[in-house]
């Protein structure tokens, strides 16, 4: 019963967020310099008067604002995100076909950042004050200050241009269609390495720092002292008695950062020509294709909320006390 209630609360939150974002979109369209109809049409150089009239009629742009907002929200709820005049496609279709590469990239990076951060942070925390701790902490400090797009470029410079180990851009090789399934998977995976590492690095730095202080904090707790008094080995104490407790705040924080990570994906996909939502964003920015940008903002926000739900789930798996509640 409580579970159902919880899911209900989450869904209500999702609905509220979608409404707020759609309203932000609406306000933006109307605060843009110029005619809202031409913004919705993608403000192309040679605007088609007939199309503009269609847009005006469709969104009821001669009606009072509140009616317009209602019309717009109604369309969003039905997943009608408008029409891209530039690409001559429905925005919803454009976004849906780019969804998978972005999901693959962000979920890989998310896992990589979380696992790497927890591992390195635990390592640094257990050796607080020693050289390996100093090294990890300094690395984290530097990574945390590195612009994501620049890190991506530097990885390309080293691993693609200098060493020639990994492809510098794209999702798969040009001849990938003729590959066997296994060959295709390894091909995509090799293209995924550099973008995923670039995107994961900065978050791994954050999680490492958090995990380090979390481990230090947990190591002062009574149950850890008891475990030590029982004569357990340090490795076993870390694995069985500290790791789960200490990673909880890191996972909570990682969930909160999902939004920032999807923003980072925009930049990473731009650098690596990764054919996902971020690359679509970049193209839409270059062409000032506003309907696509507005749709992307909405869909990416929904993705963030879904990632939040996912971290909630992971949290419950790690901490059985919550699942029992």
């Amino acid at each position, binding site marked *: 019963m409580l579970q159902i209630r919880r899911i209900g609360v989450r869904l209500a939150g999702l609905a509220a967020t979608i409404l707020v974002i759609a309203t932000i979109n609406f306000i933006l*369209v109307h605060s843009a310099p110029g005619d809202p109809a031409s913004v919705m049409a993608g403000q192309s150089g040679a605007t088609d008067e007939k199309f503009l009239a269609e847009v005006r009629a469709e969104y009821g742009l001669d009606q009072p604002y509140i009616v317009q907002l209602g019309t717009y929200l109604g369309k969003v709820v039905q997943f009608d995100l408008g029409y891209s005049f530039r690409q001559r496609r429905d925005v919803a279709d454009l976004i849906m076909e780019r969804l998978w590469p972005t999901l693959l990239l962000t979920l890989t990076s998310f896992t990589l950042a979380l696992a790497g951060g927890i591992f390195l942070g635990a390592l640094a925390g257990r050796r607080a004050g020693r050289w390996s701790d100093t090294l990890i902490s300094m690395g984290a*400090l530097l990574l945390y200050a590195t612009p994501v797009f620049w890190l991506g470029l530097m990885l390309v410079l080293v691993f693609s241009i200098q060493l020639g180990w990994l492809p510098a851009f794209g999702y798969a090789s040009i001849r990938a269609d003729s590959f066997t399934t296994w060959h295709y998977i390894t091909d995509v995976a090799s293209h995924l390495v550099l973008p995923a590492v670039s995107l994961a690095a900065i978050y791994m730095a954050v999680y490492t720092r958090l995990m380090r202080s979390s481990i230090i904090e947990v190591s002062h707790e009574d149950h850890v002292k008891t475990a030590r008094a029982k004569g357990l080995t340090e490795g076993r104490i870390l694995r069985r008695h500290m790791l789960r407790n200490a990673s909880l705040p890191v996972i909570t924080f990682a969930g909160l950062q999902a939004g920032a990570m999807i923003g980072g994906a925009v930049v990473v996909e731009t650098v690596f020509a990764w054919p996902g939502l971020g690359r679509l964003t970049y193209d839409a920015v270059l062409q000032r294709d506003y309907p696509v940008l507005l749709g992307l903002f909405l869909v990416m926000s929904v993705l963030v909320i879904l990632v939040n739900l996912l971290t909630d789930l992971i949290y419950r798996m790690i901490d059985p006390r919550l699942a029992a509640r």
Partner: protein
Amino acid sequence: MNDTLKTFLTRKTGVIGLVLLALVVALAVLAPVLYPASPWEITGVPFAAPGEYGMLLGSDTLGRDIASGIAHGARVSLLIGVASTLAALCIGVVLGCLAGYFGGWVDMLVMRFTEIFQTIPNFVLAILLVAILNPSLWTIILAIGIVSWPPLARLTRAQVMTISTREFISAARCQGQSTASIVLRHVLPNAISPIIVTGSLTIATAILIEAALSFMGLGDPNNMSWGFMVGAGRTVIRQAWWMSVFPGLAILITVVAINLVGEALNDALNPRISRS
């Protein structure tokens, strides 16, 4: 204040950060003296490697001096970093004070609003804002301010909440002081030090957002910026690594410096938190 300064200076990393930051600020201030020509002006041969033709860090695809671009870019980065943080502080502190001081339904409303703003991908919102309002110094500052306030609002709220329960606030209330005067003269001054620390770290994030925006082609077209330089140099990175490496290093050094200063400031201003 003297004690604060002393604690700050005993932190080695803080001093390193301060020195680096001073260098970046000096570069920004002296840019028109060091490189009087506009950074957009073609001053040499295109694709000159670092050190060639008297250009310390080389030239770009059109023959513009990279070093000059970095010096002038420092002005833009620091200006946008500080101005957008001030904008975020204005929004965050006002909302945080409202929520923390009044509590109840005001608090609930403000916090729900803040939560939604924290969930949405803030870089995507910044892109959308700048693209729709057209890129200029002001729209960029506004956009970064709009996406950076939620952590400041939450922090201010928590601070104001704890301080409002103290006795001296009740005393001020009993004296019949107005709410505005209580908040501005008694609550805020006591709540301000963690806000300053978080604010200083917000400058670093703001500089990173600005760099990413101008990398995506959403920088102010009249001002040279570091992100733009990396974005322009990336297509020729095979032939000319220096065009994207040096501006990126400038961003990295500036952000590291600000983070180091912010952390040392934290230890100096909030000794209780850092000791535990």
